């Protein structure tokens, strides 16, 4: 079971967290101005990254807060976690652990 670094609470076991999908996808402000295709892309199309993937997590059974994480999809290991509004850190060349 992974340990996940909650930016608010520190290192906690994976079972306290819930995955929240790909990060950095803002809900369009003026959705009525989008074409059907643009809206469909927002709703359904996500990256299927091999390697570092920016994604949302929520410390549901802890502080309850959402945060973002960079995770290596080939090892499952978290490369970094960061607060909402912060930009994603660059993926380290050599993933830790």
């Amino acid at each position, binding site marked *: *079971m*992974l*340990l996940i*670094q909650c930016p608010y609470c*520190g*290192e906690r076991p994976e079972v306290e967290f*819930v995955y*929240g999908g790909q990060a950095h996808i*803002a*809900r*369009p402000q003026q*959705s*009525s101005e*989008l074409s*059907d295709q643009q*809206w*469909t892309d927002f*709703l359904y199309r996500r990256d299927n990254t091999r390697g570092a993937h920016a994604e*949302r997590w*929520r410390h*549901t059974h802890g502080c*309850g*807060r*959402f945060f973002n994480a960079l995770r290596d999809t080939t*090892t*499952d*290991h978290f*490369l*970094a976690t960061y607060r*909402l*509004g912060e930009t994603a850190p660059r993926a380290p060349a*050599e993933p*830790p*652990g």
Partner: protein
Amino acid sequence: MTEALRSSAGGRIDRARVLHFSFDGRAYTGVAGDTLASALLANGVHLLGRSFKYHRPRGLLAAGVEEPSALVAVRRDAARYTPNLRATQVELYEGLEAHSQNRWPSLALDFGAVNDLLSPFIPAGFYYKTFMWPRRAWRSLYEPRIRAAAGLGRAPILPDPDRYAGRYAHCDVLIVGAGPAGLAAAAAAAAAGARVMVCDEQNEFGGSLLSDGARTASGIDGRTGARWLSDTLAELAARQVTLLPRTTAFGYFPHNLVALNERLTDHLAAPAALQPRERQWQVRAREVVLATGAIERPLVFPGNDRPGIMLAGAARTWLNRYGVLPGTRVVVVTASDGAYEAALELQQAGVAVAMLAEVRATAPARLADLARSAGIPLLTGATVLGTSGRRRVKAIRLARIRQGEISEAQTLRCDLVLMSGGYTPSVHLFSQSRGTLAWDDALQTFLPAVAAERARCAGACRGVFELADARADGAAAGAAAAHEATAPGRDGVYPAAAVDRSSGARTAAGASDNAGAGGFAGALPQPRHARGKAFVDWQNDVTTRDLSLATREGFVSIEHIKRYTTTGMATDQGKTSSLNALGIVSRALGKPIPEVGLTTFRMPYVPVTFGSFAGVARGELFDPVRCTPMHAWAIANGAVFEDVGLWKRARHFPRGAEDLHAAVNRECLAVRNACGIFDASTLGKIEVVGKDAVTFMNRLYVNAWSSLAVGRCRYGVLLRDDGFVYDDGVVARVAEDRFHVTTTTGGAPRVLALMEDYLQTEWPDLSLWLTSTTEQWAVIAVQGPKARQVLESLVDVDMSAQAMPHMSVVAGSICGVPMRLFRVSFSGELGFEVNVPSDFGAATWEAVFEAGRPHGMTPYGTETMHVLRAEKGYIIVGQDTDGTVTPDDAGLGWAIGKNKPDFLGKRSLQRPAMTSPDRRQLVGLLTVDPRVVLDEGAQLMAQPGAPVPTRPEGFVTSSYHSATLGRSIALALVAGGRARSGQTLYAPMPAGDVPVQVTSPVFYDPKGERLNA
């Protein structure tokens, strides 16, 4: 001493403590310290089981956890029957009752052995090829026969009466394996001040030291091995190291989480009543040292599976640890240095060594001298052509092979054959943790290369076999692990800082100095057209011929060959077979072993009981149970409960001998004609509070909330951004900045999570709080024409139709208890929902019920609630919707706030597919025969007798008998349904197509006069 083959002294057994036990009903004796295997050997019993496929007689191949053949069942009582235990791991206790498996009628006479004669017809993958035709024979003949023959052992049929415990632990250094390397690591880590845990699968710590004979016990640091062991254990105890014997590390999970299974009572004759049988540990270690040792490889030659043919190291264990002579006349066949020691020790113990057959072209000079000076005949460049003996080996045929031709063939009489193909390091856990492996040519095996976790390997599991080297290797690993774990500034278990993760390549100490040097992976050379079965995988009965067949049939990937032949797929996971299989495949494909690759190691390292995983989560503790404050009253009043999520909800309140149907009919009529009382406490409730609460609600729900006045309620519909109905519920505005939101019973957590998601991530600028209040409010629904009369006498608020119209809310008190009183209805009658703090729920309920009794108040359950709402066409999200239903589909288009710029799902509702007129829409159905109640889920066809397959027009979502209407009713989703009112559709049912008429989903009081009374 009754055991004929027990030596008079030596070993780690207590000859004075005689233990009685039985095997297949026959009585034997052993002594304290024995395993079932060693005790049977001491009694001269070598036949312990029958093999899986060919039912060949099998004995003991190994003396440890890797034993593939000697699987037995141990029975304590009718419920405590454990199959598939390795006899080598079953500790003897007084009265132990063991049984052999996979034989009928008895071990000595087994009818299944006919499979051995049929073996030409059942090669690898035969079940894919043989049972193809005729097709109809599959169900009636082939499958039942295969199922009867499949499986090992027999599962216990009674519930497991034992207790199982679980425990979490944290430590600086976890050491897996308590042999010389592991114990040295523990001592070094503990001396450096680290918190250390050590586990070992055996009952006693010591690993290979336990099997060392007097000859090799030359010792460590000037002490004998036994002395060093007891000194080290005393030192570890003094340093408060956690020592866990009988504890197998079976899984290595990310971030140094290692799962251990500790066996607490299986070795006891009479465990205490409440003592847990096993304890499963989840250990989170800052650093892990793997000192898991190595497993000796068998040699692959025809007839290598007879009882009496075993690994050389196993014989040393029987002799030195248990004081048992495994035979009287032995032939040793080896490709590795280690077996010479076995030959010399057995000879010293009085066993005649008929031949030491060295597979390598030349024997190492030092060892050859030792053997010669002991008078042991030595044959180099040897191979084995075959063996004989039905239930015990009687003779072995040795030879040399040159270019496929036999020379110097000879048959030697013997009752024991020892073999050694070298040692396979136990890299299972290291590999499970995603550490990479590298092939080592000198040792003919894979060794750990780069660790993926904060782990180190030490000793034999990384190819360091010599005792002194392994001990030094362990001490270095333990010291390094302690240093890392306790480094200043390290506060997390798994900091992201980079560390040197190389496990350390094997030091280039000359391979000839290594006790594990030499080795052979594959099958011994045979003459052309050799006969006889040469086993690779003892447990799944896989032979060299099966592997060759697979490569001839075109399999090249080792993963495919493994699955096709099932080699390495038995419960022993190929502990003794995987490398030999690789060697054979490598030769057949003409590719070196590292190119053939290795199959994946998976947890568990050994089979683990289900009880250990279940722990205390059984029966009533399997899942949490949620009860409302009125639960006790419902029990006292005869409620029948149903599970709704984790909630226990009263489904109906039968009177006398009433069945569900009769009770629901009575409850429905009582609500329609007088009044009913219903426990609605399980409804999800969320308090949305803050200056931006109304903005938040506007963006979330489809409804227009700005126009909702304080003191009024509205039916809210929540979509996801995909435009489909997600949840619904009444929302009350109890203050300008405060909403009391209700959700479906099952939907409360996901609605709150969705709200939190949008609040935190999309609209963090909004100022409001979300609080789950589901369990803070007890909700008493009072529904029916007399509802107002009943409640008026108890409350301090004006409940008149003018003061409290339908869909209003007031704060007040009831019987002196603060309340929020809603005028809402999910029944279609005049209705109120009394919300009081949960602690007052039961008392308020009883007061309301007492006040209602003179008016005919009747308690009703969820089933009546369902019928009443269906009569009114009110949907239940998740029953009448399925995640593909828009508000308009469900007839809820009216709820949408048309002038709002945005809400969740608004944009999706504008897509062409979402407004298509032939979407499935909610309609009512009336069967032509009013007595017929449709099945929920029944499909609906435009024509009767439609051929299969055909595309249905829709399906039934809710269906009941309505006592109020005196007939059946149903709700359904039907393509273009609202425009089809009056049409006839057909529901195919087992008894034939049922004609139904499409109608409005509102069956009762369509104008809502009763509701607004």
